[in-house]
């Protein structure tokens, strides 16, 4: 029911959609972590693995930081970090899907 128009949203347009493009309740499939190796590994240990499905949940007032549901737990990330977690996006089959 949630039709997404990714390009209109705030995102690093040249690098594709990121976690920050998910509105509350929307889910996406993580493609890659544009972060230094160490930081990426830390997030991966928390469940942010490429291919995993991530749902945006509630946030602090103003939308930053936001809680993400990932691999059975809830983890809050700041916008600056979430913006570097890129979502899988294939033309015709958007990686972002509404949460069932």
């Amino acid at each position, binding site marked *: 029911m949630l039709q997404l128009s990714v390009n209109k949203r705030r995102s690093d347009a040249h690098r594709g959609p990121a976690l920050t493009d998910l509105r509350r309740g929307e889910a996406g499939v993580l493609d890659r972590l544009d*972060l*230094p190796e*160490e*930081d990426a*590994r*830390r*997030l*991966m*240990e*928390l*469940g942010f*693995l*490429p*291919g995993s499905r991530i749902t945006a*949940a*509630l*946030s*602090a*007032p*103003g939308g*930053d*930081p936001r*809680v993400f549901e990932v*691999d*059975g*737990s*809830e*983890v*809050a*990330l*700041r916008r*600056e*970090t979430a913006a570097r977690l890129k979502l899988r996006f294939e033309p015709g089959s958007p990686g972002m899907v509404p949460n069932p």
Partner: protein
Amino acid sequence: MSLCAGCPSAGAPAAPPASPLRTVALVGPPNSGKSTLFNKLTGLRQKVGNFPGVTVERHTGQVFFPDGRAVTLIDLPGVYSLSPRSEDEQVTRDVLTGALPDTPGPDAILLILDSTNLARQLMLAAPILSLRIPTLVVLNMADDLRGRGGSLDLEALAAQLGAPVALVSARQGEGLEPLFEFLRNSAGAPQPRELPVLQEIPKCRQWAGRVSHRSGYHPPAPPLWTRRLDALFLHPVAGPLTFLGVVLLVFQLLFTAAAPLMDGIRFLVAASGRWVEAVLPASPLRSLLIEGVWGGVGSVLVFLPQILLLFLFIGVLEDSGYLARAALIADRTMARFGLQGKSFIPLLSAYACAVPAILSTRTIENKRDRVATILIAPFMTCSARLPVYTLIIAAFLPNRPLAGAFLGTRAAALLGLYALGFGAAVATARILKSSVLKSERTPFMLEMPSYRWPTFQSLGLRLLDRAKVFLRRAGTVILAVTVGLWALAHLPLQEGKAPPIEQSLAGTLGRTIEPAIRPLGFNWKIGIGLVTSLAAREVIVGTLGTIYGMEGDAHSQSLQQSLQKDLTPGAAVALLIFFAFAMQCISTIAVVRRETGGWRWPAIQFSYMTALAFLGAFLANHLV
């Protein structure tokens, strides 16, 4: 379902093992209920210290068996993996591999995992099992798993992992027998069916997923109550309001609810002091006991109720899971100062006393954020500054209404001093975080645990532990310093008696530093006060009382009049600013040293704050 699979034969007469377990380590991810289990197993038989050379806390405790044997449990910091990136992970790894000099490598491991999210939690099992140390896998939160309709086949999981598995609820104390059984008899080294390549996190996750799938793991339904409570606590409007309410309540209770208890301790200290005074003949020893020990340590002991109350609040907030939400809400504001959400509670606590505030920075995992928070906490206007502020303001500022009946000039001045301290803290935080403590760009990540009821045992043990830490310090460092200061004020003896304070060592010291403090508008009497107030800020009130030969009391008219004669208005403002900025507190210095693991930070902090105090007071004395 059986509560333990592959456990050493429960019920069968336990043959004494060839080499009985001596040390067993508890390992698990954060929020897996590890500490609750540790408390349940060891109760009061535990000790808290630091691992050598690092700031990571070491909790050890004993489990005794009927035959008199004891096993030592080590509660390790919560970690997601053993790759040594943080201090916590390094310590955990070093303890498990026996690389720490003072801590023998464990004979066995209790691996604590949250059974409500088994697939991800099992990722930690891979590096643990590959250590080949006998391991009991403890699946915690059995009550939650059951309540939300999850289940698994323990036998199958034990077979997959090649290690015994127990399903327990640490909070309820349910299913713990297999743990005692394991501690008594141990087991062989784990024989897992397969292990992933540990360096590859996706491989580890796939392995964990496979293991939990083959163990018939049915994940439980999402935590309904947590979702409901979050809808309130993280609501765009109700969330911040609740947060504000919690903050105000904590702040209010710290001062109001603690007050009668503090009065009680003050009364006990005074009454016991009078008793000692009555029992002992007049002698230097009596003077030392009354003025040195009772006066110095007593004035610090008074803060015990406030400290315990604060830790009770923090304990409830942390154990219930609300602290993570509060940190989330506060994060944006704190980010403006270069800090993060978790710095909020310690800074709030510092308004009561910097000592518990600094101890409570342990919830901040990021080392640099933690040090920055420790460094700025003493700028917050703690309750020990109040008697000093009250005395000076009352002596120099007539109380006139400023804004109707609500705000008088004196209250406004006090508020101004609170703002001054806060401003200095914020400015310092910005300077620190944009220079020496610039974050190593570790992204902010904060796991939101499910809400749970705090247990009385965990809260009680935490309070007991904090009380012990505080009393030990009051009984050692603070006692030594106050006795030293007493000696300064009572030596050299003149005809076998203590000299008038002007001629004592403290007096000499006051005169010696007079040239340094004259630009601030202070004379040598204030100088003595500055020296003695190193023990604790409010001590200056008593000292000035002694010097001026009057009752040391902030409300004493005569002391106020004497000060009016000795200080210009500019110097009075300078004194207020000096106390707002200076780190006049031995307890704080001692606790910073302990928490940062060396003298470097407390030395920098003391110099910086004193320099700032001098500068501020100098400017005030010349501009006002």
